[in-house]
């Protein structure tokens, strides 16, 4: 009998609309984040950074207490939409911060259209389409997208390094195309030439066929792979006795690759990469953020410095806090005041000033890094340049940018861009 009663009470509690808690003095934030699969570690850093940003304001925004609900995903878009629906309908959150990966972002763009009264602030997903193709009016992205992350690297390769002919190997999925596109637009406009493009399916370990086909007469190879794929390529490439210079995509020279054992590392020295941050940036906004991050969590429960994913969630939370303060903490009705404040926001983030455009997509700074020997024998990255005010359309007009087409294997036409079209 007691068990039945308990079950009934539990069932009733689950059925109860959670609205009662969300009203009054609290703001409820749903955190949509991948905590399973390839990005689990990055996702955990995302959660940490949301907590950090909120702790800095004492978990209070405009006099209201902040509550967070974490909804874990596995980077599959259907799971993401399910969890988002749970956050909105079951947990009755006021707005959502997330998701983490590209295809989740596109799914959330479409889901956001079904909840026009709630704000969704992107976590760190970087697909171009999310805020470019038919964007949702309530979906905001304060991080740069994958193609923006690649911008500035091409100019650096051509102008500073003098590398004009490259072959490219990139991951055969949306992020691979998008990140490559940002590099290629910039590289071709600066006068570079892409002689051959290879696309490798995710998680495919054998690069033998590609390595055999790589042309000899190139200045460098652009490598748009990440994690174990990058390590596998580098090892096989070294074993094949090949040696040329590399240019890295945004996720290529991350900690997994830099700290990997084996010969993969030897090929990496002097490789320029680009992305939304530079670990050794000396800007006080960045150094103080890193310090706060390191002080907030014990060393064994965090990364040495914030990850790409952590940074994304931190900036998103910061944007939400700033905008809500401007809106007086008003999340009622269709959140018009909150949305208005987000649209007008000039965010002083750890990675510089961020504003958003008419598609609610961030304009900000891209950092150019180069892989160098670190003090502890490991490789590390060193900031060698930055490109400020990188827009969604990569410095072109929206019409010009639209004419390039959406990221895919054949975008962009290098010769045409080089000729100035």
């Amino acid at each position, binding site marked *: 009998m007691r068990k039945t009663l308990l079950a009934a009470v539990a069932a009733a509690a689950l059925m109860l609309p959670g609205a009662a808690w969300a009203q009054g003095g609290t703001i409820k934030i749903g955190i949509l984040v991948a*905590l399973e699969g390839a990005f689990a570690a990055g996702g955990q850093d995302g959660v940490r950074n949301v907590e950090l940003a909120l702790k800095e304001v004492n978990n209070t925004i405009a006099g209201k207490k902040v509550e967070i609900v974490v909804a874990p995903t596995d980077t599959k878009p259907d799971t993401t939409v399910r969890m988002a629906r749970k956050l909105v309908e079951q947990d009755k959150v006021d707005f959502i911060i997330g998701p983490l990966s590209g295809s989740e972002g596109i799914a959330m763009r479409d889901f956001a259209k079904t909840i026009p009264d709630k704000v969704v602030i992107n976590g760190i997903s970087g697909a171009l389409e999310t805020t470019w193709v038919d964007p949702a009016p309530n979906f905001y992205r304060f991080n740069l997208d994958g193609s923006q992350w690649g911008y500035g690297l091409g100019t650096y390769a051509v102008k500073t390094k003098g590398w004009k002919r490259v072959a490219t190997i990139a991951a055969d999925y949306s992020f691979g195309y998008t990140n490559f596109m940002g590099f290629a637009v910039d590289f071709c406009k600066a006068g570079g030439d892409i002689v051959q493009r290879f696309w490798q399916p995710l998680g495919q370990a054998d690069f033998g066929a590609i390595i055999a086909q790589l042309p000899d007469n190139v200045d460098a190879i652009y490598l748009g792979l990440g994690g174990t794929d990058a390590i596998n390529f580098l090892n096989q490439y070294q074993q094949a006795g090949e040696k040329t210079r590399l240019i890295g995509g945004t996720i290529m020279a991350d900690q997994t690759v830099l700290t990997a054992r084996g010969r993969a590392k030897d090929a990496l020295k002097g490789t320029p990469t680009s992305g939304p941050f530079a670990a050794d940036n000396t800007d006080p906004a960045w150094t103080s953020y890193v310090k706060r991050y390191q002080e907030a969590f014990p060393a064994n429960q965090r990364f040495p410095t914030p990850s790409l994913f952590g940074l994304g969630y931190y900036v998103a939370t910061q944007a939400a806090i700033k905008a809500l303060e401007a809106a007086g903490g008003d999340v009622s009705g269709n959140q018009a005041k909150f949305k208005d404040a987000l649209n007008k926001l000039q965010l002083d983030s750890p990675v510089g000033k961020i504003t958003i455009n008419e598609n609610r997509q961030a304009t900000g700074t891209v950092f150019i890094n180069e892989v160098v020997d670190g003090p502890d024998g490991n490789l590390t990255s060193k900031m060698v340049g930055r490109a400020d005010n990188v827009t969604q359309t990569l410095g072109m007009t929206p019409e010009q940018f639209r004419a390039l087409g959406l990221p895919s294997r054949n975008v962009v036409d290098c010769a045409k861009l080089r000729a100035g079209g």
Partner: protein
Amino acid sequence: MAMTDHAPGFVNRADRKYWFERIPAQWWALAVVLVFLPVVANNFWLFQVMGWTFILGMIGLSLMFLAGYGGMVSLLQMSIAGVAGYMVAILGSSGTVTVSLGLAWWIVIPAAFLIAALFATLCGALAVRTEGIYTIMITLAIAAAFFYFARQNYTIFNGYSGFNLVLPPQLFGVNWRDPVPFYYLSLALAALSYGAVVYVSRSPFGLALQGVRDNPRRMAALGFNVMAHRVAAYALASVFASVGGILLVWQNAQIAPGTIGIPAAIDVLVVAVVGGMRRPLGPFIGAFIYVILQVFSPDILGFFGFSAERFKLIIGLGFLAVVLFSPDGVLGLWDRWRARRQKRDDERAGGAA
């Protein structure tokens, strides 16, 4: 694999009652609860929890039909559901305008069923030549091949990103993706599928299939075509999987290779095993447990003060508990409890006499 009770196919003429009298009271109670659920439950429960339960239940049901009545454990059912779902996205309209053909729904849906049935029949024809663990292996292999194919093929399946904005047709002026219409749609289709499986299991074909399961040699000696019965079972089961697959695409408004990956194929097996493969109700119970665990495990963890990132732990422990305490699923637990009570009542009655 003798998993199913022999269907009570022969009823004494004198005992014959009207069909509604033969349905026990519990069933009527369940029906009333399900029909009137929208009065009390919120949209999340209707659309997400119950909708997903019915969908998974139907895909699980197709596996239960094959495994329970045919003795063939197939890991292919999610792929078949995926074929139907993909076809709806490819032939109908979606956000990926370069691939989707945008045909009318009355062409798309029958075509989706047909193509899925064709796929199931072909794969079935391959798989029925094997027994036991080899059937599992070959169906797993086909499921894996289809997953990688869908992920790497861009001209038809649009690769890694798949299709989004796949919406159901606006029939009779109803938006079928609204929680209440979607709930009734999935409930009705689940009830129909359930009824169909019960009916088929008592039909000559169903009885022959159970005969094939229990003793294929004897059935062959009696003149039944064993292979044909098994392949036909695959084709029939594909219908239930297809219904689930199409509803799944409509519910998520999208389909991508992740939807039909190996974990998803295993999930269908888990759903059927946890619920119990002896009766068609099992997969639906399994699906309900699965969905509740999937949706609420982060909250359960949070309630006990653990971090939400360990949510898969609860799901795993839940399934472990069910399989450990009742190898034939939750329904098996229920059967044993009823048998024990029956025995106790009998003893008491015996003692009094």
